[in-house]
Each structure stands twice: as C-alpha cells, then as structure tokens.
C-alpha cells in the first residue's frame, strides 16, 4: 500500500480526524485525536 493509498484509507475510516502519517506502515501513523480511537491495522487494510 502506498502512502497516498494509506492516507485515503485513514480518511475513509475516520473522516475529520487529526493525525500524522510518516510513511507506509501502521506504526508510522501518529494519532492526534485523543477522544477518537486510532483505527486498527485491519480497518486500514494493512
């Protein structure tokens, strides 16, 4: 999965949320929204 494909998957799983993505792995996703949970790797298709 490319970076842009992963960005699209995050936007689809948690629209309107705040996060940083520093690569193409689940570990490279930094979740900034405390109330909302970080999507699971399975939700993102990883």
């Amino acid at each position, binding site marked *: 999965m490319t970076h842009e494909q992963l960005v699209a998957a995050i936007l689809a799983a948690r629209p309107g949320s705040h*996060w*940083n993505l520093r690569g193409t792995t689940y570990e490279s996703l930094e979740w900034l929204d405390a109330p909302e949970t970080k999507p699971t790797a399975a939700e993102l298709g990883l």
Partner: protein
Amino acid sequence: MSQQLTKTLGMAGQIDMNSNKIVDMANGTASTDAATFGQIFTGFQAPVFAQNSTDFTTTSSSYQTTNLSASITPTSSSHRIRITVSGVIRTNGVTEAHLTVARGTTDLATGATGFNRFTGVVAATNQRCPASFSFVDSPATTSSTTYNVRLKNDDNTGTVGFGTASTQVIILEEIV
C-alpha cells in the same frame, strides 16, 4: 647550504623568507590592523546535508514535524546558520499547506503561513507543488542545534503532505 633568512620586524611577527610567510603575528584588534589567518579562517565545518524520501501527511492546523531534519554544532556563537530546504508539498482537496523550519521547537518564520504556502483549489484531488526556501538563523550557541521542517494546514480539516514520493533535502551551512 641552509640560510637563515628571517627579518625581525621589531616585534613578535617575522618575515620568514624560507617559507615566504609572515609568521608569529598577533591577532589584529583594530579595523586598520592586519588580520591573522586564524582570525580569517575560523574553522567553519563542512555543510550538513540530510535527505529523506519518506512521505509525510498531516491533518492538523498546528505545525507538525515532518521526516526531514538535520543538526549542526556551530564553532562560534557569533556564527550564523544558512538553512536551505527543498521538496514537494501536497494538498488533498481545498486547503492550504504551510511549510516552515524550526530551531528545536521555535518556528523561524515570522508569518503565520511559514516560508512556503500552497493552496489547493480542487476538491478531493492531490495537488502538488515544488517548495524551496532559504533562511539565515542566528542560534547564538556552540551546542548541537537541530532544525526540523514542519507542515500544517490552514483549516484543521484538510490533508496536506510533504515529500510525496520525491526526495526532500535540508542543507545547513555555518557562515559569518
């Protein structure tokens, strides 16, 4: 036959004709004094170069540290650091990307939109733009100093990126 061809100038400095040099000079202290080599060449280090090809994306409107950073240790607290940054910024949809550089956590841009500002005008589409800038910083230290490239959007909603499958570069140069 070796010859001693040294002419004393009446002070510590000497013209050494064997080496064709004026030696043992004291450092100049007034604007009309000659400067010694040690005063002119103050031990600048080679430029620091860092590159990264890993994409970074954020949806935040507060500056977030990208994957691009570099550190330099100035040899004098009076020396300045010339920072050069280049890469590609991206917006996904109608939002603005603001790119800046920070010394530690201190944003070096005086404006709220950083050094580079790119506006996406088409909804739900990746729009890319080359981004580059230079800045001269005065860190006033001889400690290791880290400069990191940061990115944010303008609406706390849009998706903005730096890198976008191309190489990002930061160069740090110590200058007077």
